[in-house]
């Protein structure tokens, strides 16, 4: 099967849209219940904008288009955070049609730093960073020990999954969940969940 950045964009969007109700349900428990709805709307806009680019665009251009589409259609906190993440990830991948392992690592780091700057959050606050930062660290560790991109991504996904489980155990100190204080313990973060879903969708697409 011919893999392309266009294909993976659809794979990621499809997973998010399929999990719309689940993500909203998670967000209901400790938020306002719209994470899935907003992200699904965002990716529907992403599909239109990315497909409208025409063929042959480099990966960076596609990621930038995703970022802008999410920023202008998702709203809430997820729009600026994911939008910034994709815009930042576009920088190391500018002009490229294939990605070496090292570049993927740089893209993950750029995305995470974008989220941290925009959202002013760090690890341990029960956010998407608690899935993404462990994923990045696991990816880099695997990559530097000689694993392939796919192998490293698989290990990264597992780390993200563990990150989600970790978010269940801690108090939220960012976002709407922070209003709940201790009541937020026991619930997993919706943003961490959607982050993991995206990484998993990318992994599954390239593993096929």
């Amino acid at each position, binding site marked *: 099967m011919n893999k392309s950045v266009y294909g993976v964009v659809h794979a990621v969007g499809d997973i998010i849209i399929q999990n719309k109700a689940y993500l909203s349900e998670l967000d209901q428990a400790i938020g306002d219940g719209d994470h899935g709805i907003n992200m699904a709307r965002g990716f529907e806009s992403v599909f239109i904008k990315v497909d409208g680019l025409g063929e042959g665009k480099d990966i960076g251009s596609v990621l930038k288009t995703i970022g802008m589409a999410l920023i202008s259609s998702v709203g809430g906190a997820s729009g600026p955070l994911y939008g910034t993440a994709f815009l930042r990830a576009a920088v190391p991948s500018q002009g490229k049609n294939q990605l070496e392992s090292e570049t993927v690592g740089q893209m993950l780091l750029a995305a995470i730093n974008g989220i941290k700057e*925009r959202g002013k959050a760090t690890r341990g606050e029960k956010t998407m960073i608690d899935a993404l930062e462990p994923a990045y660290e696991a990816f880099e560790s695997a990559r530097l020990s000689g694993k392939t991109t796919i192998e490293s991504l698989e290990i990264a996904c597992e780390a993200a999954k563990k990150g989600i489980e970790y978010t269940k155990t801690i108090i939220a100190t960012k976002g709407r969940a922070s*209003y709940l204080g201790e009541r937020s313990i026991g619930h997993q973060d919706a943003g961490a969940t959607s982050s993991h879903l995206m990484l998993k969708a990318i992994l599954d697409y390239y593993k096929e």
Partner: protein
Amino acid sequence: MKKVINIPENVVEEMLQGIVAAHPKYIKRVEGFDVLVRVNSPIDGKVALVSGGGSGHEPSHGGFVGRGMLDGAVAGAVFTSPTPDQIYEAVKAVDGGKGVLLIVKNYSGDVMNFDMAAEMATVDGIIVDKVIVDDDVAVENSTWTIGRRGIAGTVLVHKITGAKAETGADLTEVKRVAEKVIANVRSMGMALTPCIVPAAGKPSFVLTEDELEIGMGIHGEPGTHREAIRAADEITSDLVDKILAEMPLTNGDEVAVLVNGLGATPLMELYVVNRKVNEILCGMGVSIAKTYVGNYMTSLEMAGLSVTVLKLDAELKQLLLAVADTPAFVQF
């Protein structure tokens, strides 16, 4: 769910069309955007005020666009902060060359989206500044949270800041007044029933027949705790106590009061609550310069209310009592 809507996806669009159709002498729509501005925007020589947020809080904020209050209001998806491109269009549409002040309620999404829009407008050379409203005393303001939420007190920020802007004051002055209101306004809410976001199709949380949620925000998100329902006077006393704990008042102080319905609570009940608020404050020797009772910042069909107390000085009082003429707020 039973709602008087067509398909959920079209709710905000159809609502905006309906608002403009109802109030054509006050507001117009920025073509292609979910933005309402004064019919005579942009107004030269005046700082312009832009606010907004998720839809579902009507009349906030589009209902307050007009003389003496806002110049523009941005409507996001229900309970979702609007995106930067929308806010940016509002800023461009109202900028009269004297700068634009964004009045932003303190929620992560609102703050980030308004910030990004301000960055975009600044690139165009428009002078933009912002204030963040955080009147809700329910959530502890500490380094362990993202800070207090902005709720119905925001309407008083719109009113007083709007009056100041109408005088032709510069942006620094207008912002100073807005910050003064924010520093002196405190609110606390509660809810009896949840609300249903049209796209979600089911209630945001479940309360039993005799429960109420204290510290309820305006998006259907859970509050600080639940308790059994009690008489109005007891609930009201608790809400006012919590407000006074954060903003002590003494004999001789002067305030404004806003008893705000969240959507489904009858005016009758809001007035019952106001009776008690009035009794408590007057009992302390506090005089009430102005009272507002009604639905100012709702949460769809949530039953419940919030009480807002604004501590006044001579400047704030004069601006509060100044003329305003908007679809949802008329004062002469």
